[in-house]
């Protein structure tokens, strides 16, 4: 018998989906600024990328506020407990419809692998992409900030590395979103907020 629990609050869902759109859009425009293809034109791509960046910044201001006021930030505390079980599940169990080794609850909604993945995003990709992006955006102020020694080439290089990591995360993330007990279960939960969990 499945039980329905309310996992994702309204703001959280809004945050997730608007962030998803922004990140997809920023990958699209960002790789154009990098010169990989030509869709919007360099000028438009740059401007759109910048607008999206500022939108994301504002979104994050709210998200950070929300995470701290609600205490939800604790969801991202990493744990190694059951990681091996999770790995084993994705490598074998998932194929034979074995039971999921992790039970979602409202206080613990991310499985241990998820927590590690998000830690990677939060601790590696985001700092890299945000700081390099910030510097990129304020190229004209380096001198005033005491960062005159920085080189745009390296800032851009790490920004692009982070972008690639984001792209890879994005692919894996979308796939794993289908790895619930049904293909669409996680996606539905992210839309409605309600997840069905097995007893």
């Amino acid at each position, binding site marked *: 018998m499945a039980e329905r629990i309310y996992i994702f609050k309204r703001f959280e869902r809004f945050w997730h989906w608007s962030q998803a759109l922004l990140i997809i859009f920023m990958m699209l425009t960002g790789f154009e600024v990098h010169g990989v293809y*030509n869709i919007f034109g*360099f*000028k438009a791509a740059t401007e759109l990328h910048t607008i999206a960046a500022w939108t994301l910044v504002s979104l994050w201001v709210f998200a950070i506020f929300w995470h701290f006021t609600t205490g939800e930030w604790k969801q991202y505390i990493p744990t190694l407990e059951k990681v091996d079980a999770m790995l084993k599940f994705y490598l074998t169990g998932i194929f034979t419809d074995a039971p999921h080794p992790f039970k979602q609850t409202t206080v613990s909604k991310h499985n241990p692998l998820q927590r590690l993945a998000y830690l990677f995003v939060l601790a590696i990709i985001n700092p890299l992409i945000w700081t390099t992006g910030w510097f990129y955006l304020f190229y004209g102020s380096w001198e005033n900030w005491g960062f005159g020694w920085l080189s745009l080439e390296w800032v851009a290089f790490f920004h*692009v590395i982070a972008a690639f990591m984001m792209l890879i995360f994005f692919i894996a993330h979308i796939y794993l979103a289908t790895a619930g007990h049904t293909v669409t279960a996680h996606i539905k939960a992210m839309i409605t907020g309600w997840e069905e969990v097995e007893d």
Partner: protein
Amino acid sequence: MLKFKYKGSLLALTFVLSIGMIWPVHANDAKAPEKAVVSGAVDVFGIAVDEQKKKSTADHSKFKELQVDFKDGPAVTKACISCHTEASKQLHKTKHWNWDYINADTKQHLGKKNVINNFCTSVPSNYKFCTACHIGYGWEDENFDFTAEEKVDCLVCHDTTGNYKKLPGLAGHPNYKTMEWPPHSGKFRAPTDLKQVAQAVGKTSRATCGACHFRGGGGDAVKHGDLDSSLTTPDRYLDVHMDAKGLDFSCSKCHTSDSHEVAGSRYQPTAVDDKGTLIRGSKEERNAATCVACHGNVPHFGEFAKMNEHTDKIACQTCHIPAYARGNKQTKMSWDWSTLGKMDDQGHAMKIKGSDGSVIYDSKKGDFTFDHYVVPEYQWFNGEVEFTLADTKIDPTKVVKINSFKGSYDDGKSRIWPTKVFRGKQMFDKGNNTLVVTSLSDDPETALWKNFDINKAVEYGMKYAGRDFSGEVGWVETEMSWPITHMVAPKEDVVECHQCHTENGRLAGIEGIYIPGTNTTPLLDKLGFIVAFLTLIGVLIHGAIRYFMHKRGG
């Protein structure tokens, strides 16, 4: 690498039809009548004479000193300096007068009479011809008196009639007698009406400065590329400041002068100006003829604010002058002296014209190429120019740089500048490995353009200049750079972002600068996309196994 092609392609019929619909817009443009210049009393220069007179507090035609039939130019000057007592003394101190200049930074001895270029190459032994563009009268040899006040030519700069012309061969004088001009053309120029010209003197104009500066290198548009007679009455598209129907700047609006000393220099250009606007009354000793001197350090705002973050590496001109020689005049791009002397079937000197009517071969001078609407070549430039002088040893196996623009990405004082690079092949002293002075025009016995004997011409030129000559003439390839700074396009016609921010864009090959969008990290990109692709394959395989296992399991 992913490469998407995105073009605004149209289906054939739409395309054809739209061409048909656009057609009437361009109909007849080939024979569109020349637009009338500014209304009112207009002289040949396109300057409203009446208006200028109205503004001046002196009507020179009312001065008794000028109501005289002058016999020659110096006579006019004597009249001028009888009131403007210090004028000639001021001019005696200028480069315009001395053609002699010492660069205080490099200690190089420069100036027109000293340098050798890759156009007509050198002045000594050719004074009568070259000094048609000297602001004096009678400089025909080394013995010219540089202290003579009456020898300063006031009219060439202050004429407003357009009837005053100094002709090559007359050592800086206009013609005082009827004279065939151009030579062998069958056309005759009446004697210059000095009285009329003298009575109409006024401020300098694009036309007076242009009389020499548009014709550098011996003809309209030849030398600079960004200066030619199309700037006499330019439209807005050609130069947004000089636009005759708009801002209508004269040269002196930027090239301000103090005691006849004019701001701006090609020997010591200001490649970087980050000192902000030059305010009236400022005691700063700096070039007033820079963009920044008026526009300041932070000239872009609103949606163009990002452009301010380009000025640490890029000169204003690089974006704001998308191409030079845009005024439909052909500028000379190369000059190969080594082919001179070919005669036609009758054994006469000849000129061969190219498709657009410019002379592409001249028995006196060799082969030329021309171009217009030319995209500049870009170089790092910090304002320091080093010349290959008459006594500089050259390496004839390499292209000799007549002048090298110094600067680099890491010297902290350079900007990327647009330049015209003029390429030539010219005579040099094979024994001594130096450039040479060549007798071209004046001396009847040796002048190249009369005798077509390069050895005799160089021998005489070198002797005249007091230089050692081995007796052997060779041909060496040369390059000369000219900064492009005029013909500033309207803002909607600036170089667009994608023209540099693309693979093989305009600044491709410029060292030491990272330009986003130029595909400069191919290895990283390849690696990144491979890993992303493998991830995709990985999850797809994982998904496929799930699907089939699930199906089999029921």
